[in-house]
């Protein structure tokens, strides 16, 4: 029973990790905290829901198209709106993205209404029995997809020229400009990648939880907790934080009251902010 919960939390945590990775990448490169993170993920969740409802597409199939669309949206958003704010004070960036979050959440409320919408694929209730463990099939598939995408992303940053250029721009923006990198474009690509991450994570999440507008702010706060715990700007930290929070929430949900599980996350957030603000895996600067 407890072991089942740990595995469930672990698998969910891998999807959380992918979502938080999007936040972490954007912050790591541009030093912008995307306050509309969860709200954007909800847009992807509605996309997955609509694709399933009207086109009959399994979210595992609509995953890549939605991520691609979200990449374009993120790229355009950075180019059209966020770019001039890169060099402005923290609080301005915050307020800009809060306004975006308000628009997205309430726009979703206007278009889709407050009711929860779930995706019921025909294998929703299947599960695998591995030894003593009972594992949901959807959760396992979603987690595998999340891991594959995360690996792809890490490989992108490690091996491709664009990935290396983005890392260079993150390390030293002026140096990157001096050697002729188009930093603005790299920033837009980064924002696109971050948005694609949460688009993919949102699509996968739509298999596990119902979509409704108020999920947005919850996911934003959840992503904040994860990246702060793991280390803001650290990619490995986002994954570790995702898994840690996933498992902790699953356990707190079984051992304590389910409604207390986010209390646990916020408590952890406060502790980390005070004692180790760079996060568990982040580097102090």
């Amino acid at each position, binding site marked *: 029973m407890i072991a089942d919960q740990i595995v469930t939390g672990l698998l969910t945590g891998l999807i959380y990790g992918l979502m938080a990775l999007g936040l972490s990448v954007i912050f790591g490169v541009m030093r912008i905290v995307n306050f509309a993170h969860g709200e954007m993920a909800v847009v992807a969740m509605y996309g997955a829901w609509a694709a399933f409802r009207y086109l009959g597409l399994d979210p595992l199939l609509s995953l890549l198209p939605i991520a691609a669309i979200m990449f374009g949206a993120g790229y355009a958003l950075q180019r059209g709106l966020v770019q001039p704010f890169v060099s402005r004070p923290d609080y301005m960036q915050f307020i800009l993205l809060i306004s975006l979050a308000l628009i997205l*959440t*309430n726009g*979703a*409320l206007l278009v889709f209404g407050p009711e929860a919408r779930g995706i019921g694929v025909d294998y929703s209730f299947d599960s695998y029995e591995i030894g003593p463990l009972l594992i949901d099939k959807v959760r396992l598939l979603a987690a595998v997809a999340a891991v594959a995408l995360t690996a792809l992303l890490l490989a992108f940053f490690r091996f491709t020229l664009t990935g290396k250029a983005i890392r260079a721009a993150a390390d030293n923006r002026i140096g990157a400009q001096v050697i002729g990198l188009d930093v603005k474009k790299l920033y837009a690509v980064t924002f696109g990648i971050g948005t694609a991450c949460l688009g993919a994570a949102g699509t996968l999440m739509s298999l596990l939880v119902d979509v409704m*507008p108020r999920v947005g702010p919850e996911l934003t706060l959840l992503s904040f907790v994860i990246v702060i715990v793991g280390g803001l700007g650290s990619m490995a930290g986002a994954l570790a934080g995702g898994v840690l929070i996933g498992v902790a929430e699953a356990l707190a949900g079984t051992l304590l009251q389910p409604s207390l599980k*986010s209390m646990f996350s*916020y408590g952890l957030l*406060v502790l980390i902010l005070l004692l180790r603000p760079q996060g568990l895996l982040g580097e102090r600067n």
Partner: protein
Amino acid sequence: MRIGLLILLGLFLLAPLAAGPYLLSLLTVLLTFAYLGQAWNIMMGFAGQLSLGHALYVGLGAYVSAALSIFWGVPPILGVFPAMAAAALVGAAIGLLSFRFAVKGVHFTLLTIAFAEIARILFQHLSILGGTGGLFLPVEVRSGVDLVHLRGDPRMFYYLILTMSVAVFFFCRALLASPLGYRWLALREDPGAAESLGVDLLRVKLAAIALSAALTAAGGVFAAFFYNALFPDQWFGLGYSIEIILAPIIGGLGTLFGPILGALLLSPLGEAISAVTESFGWQTAGIKPFCYGIVLLAIVKFLPDGVWPAIRKRLR
């Protein structure tokens, strides 16, 4: 400018003569946001500390005064003091923690959110205070004025929040002209330089947070007795914290007139939009915050200092 302010005040004073119950409650809500925005502005606009958890202090003020009144019969005119003290203490504790562990910028803002969220979940589980089911103040229909128990007709509430808003306006004006006010501005503009000039950053920061929290809590006491129903999700929620900061940002951060102007612009806009969409028979849940989001976006994009500084420039 002074004449404009006097005219505005005169209009507010005379409004109940002409306003019906609907308009009066709208004006009361407007002034509540002007008041809360002014209180928040002390921390962000003057001292440069972005708090996205001010619902925590509204909620604390509301719950403390309501609980004192319900369980021990303490009237709100006395209950407001422990309510403000509780909020000031919590604010100071958060400030002290963040200072001791050097939590700054984005991290500080996240800390304020985290504490508000913790309080929200905590109050959801305090069954003695109603939990998620809510805490209700007994409603008595009285036509007279009972300021001690905050019971009376809507006009009393209106004049009370008007008085509070005017008082907090002049209080903030005095603060800005005081040595403390100059230290806040120094802290906001450049903490390092301020410290090197001998500004005690810890004291100055704590003063900003505690004062802002206490004044916000007083607004919470007012709101508790005005609405009579407290729910942790609403009173401590992030959504409320964001609603509080809209008016001062749109009106002009750090300006005295900004929060009032912001509330004057936003509330009628929200009401007008609701009225229009309702008259078309559209589903309207979310339309107001949706429009607030668009206005906020336009302001940060095109008038980052807010509306009031832009108007003031024209006037000169």
